[in-house]
């Protein structure tokens, strides 16, 4: 219980969707719709080199031929892809900021409301933050400190200009541009995102963090993140997401690629709190994300996610365990309330010898929501001694929601050892009464029990995120009692 002392200091009284405000800043938006010209326009706006434009166009052409998938356990009205604006940039006079003081004060205020005040983060937490608002990267703090170690942490647009060789080599190497419908769409139109490169043998001295936020109405957000950890390096990366309350659905189709070379370790944590829609299920973000990491020899990738937001989530952070002795981990909390739908899980693809993977998934369903775990564990016939342990627990609150488990386990090696367990339960009346007797009311009791249920995963988050995640779980469950 590493957080006990921290927890002692934290208590909350937030109501509603806390981050549901709208920042009023002019934005530079492309007309709605998608065709080759729009793709070219995006590329041009970003002043990209020819090869990048071509890459996007290839992705677009692939996407055109693809069908939106419908195998997941979610129902939603498919977005009209011609009625979305694929580029929106906060309209500032300068494309880049040299220091934080130059950032639009209202923007800064937004970040303050988000609880990620840049200055404070800078001073206190020592976290370097890249903020992607709507579609473009706004500012990257701590750049200098990182540069001294040879660490590159910048927007992907900047990386395309400044480090084209790295981008060329790795972009699309883990998630090919036509991997799936949403990844192809992202590859064609991504407007910005984060790029991170950790050189050989370097342990990144601080948590790197990106905050994503959809602001403009009628826009989609398509950010692209690429993290490369060279041999024997280490990085812990945090990703936070928020979006304002809106009536219409907003589309978020991101791609995250992680490359962990020999002996490297990448820890990738997400606290996702896109607007989930209101109590009647109106509005909310469609979160269709492709996240995948590649592990070379002895490398380790660990995905930790706390998913409380979005109207519809479709997301399977995966690990391709290519190198011998590599390790993949997936720790997830997915909480759905009201009319939210989540179909999330992971894929662990064991290709190398002596590879190990762990999956801990905690699903909490309340209201009229549907929460599905979908996972694949695959041990190739050439992968000797593959090991996997999976545990999927579901907690149901009330009788209008659903909790579903769809594990796929494919083993073609006699040396593979795979264990999968799943349980479904509810919060006991006796647990509530026990809490009540100690003066804890029902709502608080439920929050406490849910936090306990999620503990194994919360413990995997970096400290400052763990506190925020607990807070989010509590807020997201409000009104689910009774």
């Amino acid at each position: 219980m590493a957080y006990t002392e921290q927890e002692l200091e934290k208590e909350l009284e937030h109501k509603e969707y806390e981050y549901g405000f709208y920042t009023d800043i002019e934005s530079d938006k492309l007309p709605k719709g998608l065709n080759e010209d729009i793709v070219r326009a995006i590329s041009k706006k970003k002043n990209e080199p020819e090869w990048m434009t071509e890459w996007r166009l290839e992705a677009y052409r692939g996407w055109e031929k693809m069908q939106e998938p419908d195998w997941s356990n979610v129902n939603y009205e498919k977005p009209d892809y011609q009625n979305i604006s694929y580029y929106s940039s906060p309209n500032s006079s300068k494309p880049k900021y040299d220091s934080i003081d130059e950032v639009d004060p209202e923007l800064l205020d937004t970040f303050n409301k988000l609880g990620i005040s840049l200055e404070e983060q800078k001073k206190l937490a020592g976290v370097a933050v890249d903020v992607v608002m709507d579609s473009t990267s706004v500012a990257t703090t701590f750049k200098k400190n990182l540069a001294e170690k040879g660490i590159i942490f910048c927007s992907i647009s900047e990386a395309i200009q400044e480090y084209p060789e790295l981008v060329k080599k790795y972009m699309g190497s883990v998630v090919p541009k036509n991997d799936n419908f949403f990844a192809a769409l992202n590859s064609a139109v991504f407007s910005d995102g984060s790029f991170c490169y950790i050189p050989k043998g370097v342990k990144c001295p601080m948590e790197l963090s990106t905050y994503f936020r959809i602001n403009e109405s009628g826009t989609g957000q398509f950010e692209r993140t690429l993290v490369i950890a060279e041999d024997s390096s280490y990085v812990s990366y945090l990703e936070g997401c928020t979006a304002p309350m809106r009536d219409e659905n907003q589309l978020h189709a991101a791609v995250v690629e992680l490359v962990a070379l020999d002996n490297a370790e990448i820890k990738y944590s997400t606290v996702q709190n896109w607007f989930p829609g209101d109590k009647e299920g109106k509005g909310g973000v469609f979160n269709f994300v492709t996240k995948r990491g590649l592990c070379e020899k002895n490398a380790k990738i660990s995905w930790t996610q706390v998913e409380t937001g979005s109207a519809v989530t479709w997301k399977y952070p995966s690990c391709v365990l290519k190198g011998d002795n590599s390790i993949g981990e997936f720790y997830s909390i997915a909480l759905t309330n009201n009319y939210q739908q989540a179909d999330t899980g992971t894929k662990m693809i064991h290709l190398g010898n002596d590879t190990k993977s762990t999956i801990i998934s905690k699903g909490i369903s309340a209201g009229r929501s549907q929460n599905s775990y979908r996972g694949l564990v695959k041990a190739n016939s050439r992968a000797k001694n593959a090991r996997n342990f999976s545990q999927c627990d579901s907690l149901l609150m009330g009788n209008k929601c659903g909790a579903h488990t769809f594990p796929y386990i494919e083993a073609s090696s006699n040396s593979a050892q795979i264990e999968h367990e799943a349980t479904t339960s509810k919060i006991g009346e006796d647990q509530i009464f026990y809490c009540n007797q100690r003066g804890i009311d029902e709502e608080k009791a439920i929050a406490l029990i849910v936090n306990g249920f999620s503990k194994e995963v919360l413990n995997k988050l970096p400290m400052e995120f763990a506190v925020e995640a607990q807070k989010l779980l509590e807020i997201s469950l409000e009104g689910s009692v009774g």
Partner: protein
Amino acid sequence: MLQIKNLHATVEGEEILKGINLSIKPGEVHAIMGPNGSGKSTLASVIAGNEDYEVQEGDIIFDKANISELSPDERAHKGIFLSFQYPVSIPGVSVTNFIKTSINQIRKSRGLEEMSASDMLKTMREKSKLLGIDRKFLSRSLNENFSGGEKKRNEIFQMAMLEPKLAILDETDSGLDIDALKTVANGVNKLRTEDNATLVITHYQRLLDYIVPDVVHVLLDGKIVKSGDKDLALKLEREGYDWLKTETVNA
């Protein structure tokens, strides 16, 4: 402090309590004894406000206020504490975190500020020392994989932390060996003051050797059939309940 008047209660339509009258003053220790199924634990649950039981008739007056309509958490806010016979486990919630939540919720209900982290830690250290509780114990998940003795000690530890006006100990002695029993009883005795009261519910007399009651009540078939001083408990130990049954029938 506590007055129970003509209390009738049912569970799933079956009447368990059939007219209980009981009055406890500050500073007193009362014991309720009785055979299995006489309604002892039901009485404890009903005072604490467990909604599985339906109160058909009668009132529960606590600190001059009728609490019959209050929810269990509201009763707890007023200072009623129940040490459970079978404390439930809450996986992933540490003892510390649970007590902290409990204390701050109670303080909030009384319009008090939250207890500062340093005060909280200080009090915890103090009380855990009093009850001989290892600090490591406080980081474990509440009641999960606790032994019988650990569960009971944890209940008394919470009682020490919350400092209730009325503590109800429901079969706190069951499942304890003699050393554990002494530790628990010792803890209860140390926490006694002139302002608070204790209601001990037990099956056996042995706990009353260590927590000496001012009044002993005998509960038979949902009614208090006899009250007396601590010697009554000794008599029950020697002679059982049969003589009382006959007495009741004859009466």
